[in-house]
């Protein structure tokens, strides 16, 4: 059981961003992708989720063996893929409680109603764990939220929807260290043999708190190195230049 990305090519407009990307995330593991700005990290996340601005020109993404391509973004989500957004959208007038409820309702068979009492019990428990005040449930989704509140709200959704695979796109951006710890703790409690994680980040800092099983380095639309968590430390200490040099040498 895995999330398998095979020779993935994708464009935005005429520009090729992903240039044959291969990656396999087995269930129960946490993989991290590090890379400089513009290496295509966020594009990978959006292409997997089915963002309409990107065109897939080759390859495939298989969730437990079934292709995600040809599925609408909402079908991919219901199939078990979750994307935590780098910039979560603000949706005025739609409360967090109603939003998550609609997402859970969409996963039930036609005609079946979500059990409201159980839902709120579960929601409050997850919010308590993330140190979110309960008044948040009646606030509009991300509307006027601070950076930290938005990311906590993403993790709350992750905890409520319990996907098979979660892609966290720059979940650490815009967070101070306290907020980062809370978010990381939230993710860590969700680590289980039933869930695979792909953590996309620009900085090694997040990986001190969400310790990955495997670290991948992305350069120019491809994974060019994979290793243990030490690889992240080396990147933090020495930057990306050495990898680019090695790539040039072997080119």
């Amino acid at each position: 059981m895995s999330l398998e990305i095979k020779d993935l090519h994708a464009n935005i407009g005429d520009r090729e961003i992903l240039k044959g990307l291969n990656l396999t995330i087995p269930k129960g593991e946490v993989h991290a992708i590090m890379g400089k700005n513009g290496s295509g990290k966020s594009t990978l996340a959006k292409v997997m989720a089915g963002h309409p601005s990107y065109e897939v020109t080759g390859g495939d993404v298989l969730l437990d063996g079934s292709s995600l391509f040809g599925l609408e973004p909402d079908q991919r989500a219901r199939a078990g893929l979750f994307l935590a957004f780098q910039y979560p959208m603000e949706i005025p007038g739609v409360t967090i409680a109603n939003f998550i409820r609609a997402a859970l309702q969409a996963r039930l068979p036609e005609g079946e109603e979500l059990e409201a009492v159980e839902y709120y019990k579960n929601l409050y428990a997850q919010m308590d764990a993330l140190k979110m005040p309960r008044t948040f449930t009646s606030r509009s989704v991300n509307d006027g939220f601070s950076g930290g509140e938005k990311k906590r709200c993403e993790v709350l959704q992750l905890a409520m929807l319990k996907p098979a695979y979660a892609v966290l796109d720059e979940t650490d951006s815009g967070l101070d260290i306290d907020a980062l710890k809370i978010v990381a703790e939230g993710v860590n409690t969700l680590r289980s043999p039933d869930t695979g994680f792909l953590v996309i980040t620009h900085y090694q800092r997040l990986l001190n708190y969400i310790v990955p099983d495997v670290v991948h380095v992305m350069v120019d639309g491809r994974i060019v190195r994979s290793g243990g968590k030490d690889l992240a430390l080396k990147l933090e200490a020495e930057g990306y230049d050495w990898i680019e040099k090695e790539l040039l040498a072997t080119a």
Partner: protein
Amino acid sequence: MSTTLDDNTIETTTPAWLAELQAAALKDYENTPAPTRRDEAWRYSDLSALNLDAFVEAKPVESEGRLINSSRGVEQTAAKLVFGNNALLHADTASLPAGVVVAPLDVAARDHAEIFRRYFMAQPVELGSHKYAALHKARVTGGTFIYVPANVEVALPIEVFHWVEGENASVFPHTLIICGENSKVTVLDYFQSSDNQRAFACGVNDLHLERGAKLNYVAVQNWSPTSLAFHINSTIVARDATSSALSLNFGGGFVRGESLSRLDGEGSRSEMLSINPLDGTRIVDQRTLQDHAAPGAASDLLYLNALDNASRSIFAGLIKVEEGAHRTDAYQKVRNLILSNESEANSMPGLEILADDVRCTHGATSGEINEDELFYMQARGIRKEDGRRLIVNGFFQSLLERLESAPLREYLGRKVTERLGLPVQ
């Protein structure tokens, strides 16, 4: 406690002065030409919708009991009246505070003639529908007279249901509210078709707020989707009084709304709000006037239209700051959420300022659903169509956040959610 009035108790004879008034109004109606394309007040409108030939006098409703039972609003009311095809079917006024009058028009014309004559349709109708207001005046029988004496606060809402039933039936609902000095009241008017027939509704409401009074007025309009409806409103706000009026246009095929707010005293405030979920080929045509006749008053208009299918909205609003109305604060905003390429939104905001030191802003915006918001919802597993409805619902709910009363906000929030076909919690 509930009392259903039988025919004997509501039978009244029209006073001579009212009969005269109505006869004169009928002449006025007949002598006033129908609107033409050249009328600025009817610009962009659909004049073909105004043909009244097919409409007939409404017959008594078939089942009073069914309509009374279907008249469900908020949980607790101070008073509740139900009208069906212009006739009073039910009145429960047992929970009203002492001195407050909630009575059908004919009873009020008899028992409170002086005050009735002073306020009943006392304002000239300036926004284009003079002819139809005259018709209303000539034909009105069903309607409510609400009088709240000075310093009385009515804690629970007063609810009035106006039903129409039968093919081409005509109804002339009227609401006359007089809020005495420093009084406070909330009134909900419901306008509903009991069947799917085309009907003609020609309604007028007069809201009068005396010094320091506070009125929350809500109109929930749900005529059948082929009906022709006029809703002509005037609100006169005296010194330090605050009016908040909200219309929810859920139904109607062609709905002409005219709203005048006159800020008549220093420190008066008027909020004018409207929620219009439009679909099919429905047209909502709204004309407004924020008339600042006194200094230091505030008016705030926010109209929201969501336009699906081949629906159409027309909005023309004027902020008029009269000479001497210094320190006026006036806002006017129309937002159109365009959901379909075939829909059309026409917005004509306007300003006329004859005083100094005023703050006026007006504007109209039109936009489509933000694709990134929709993608965000889909990325959570929500189907595109449901996501669209959630976003439209959110668009309207954010207006309701302006309502002061939390129970009313939640109640109307559920009504909007229901209208959009979303599950209500």
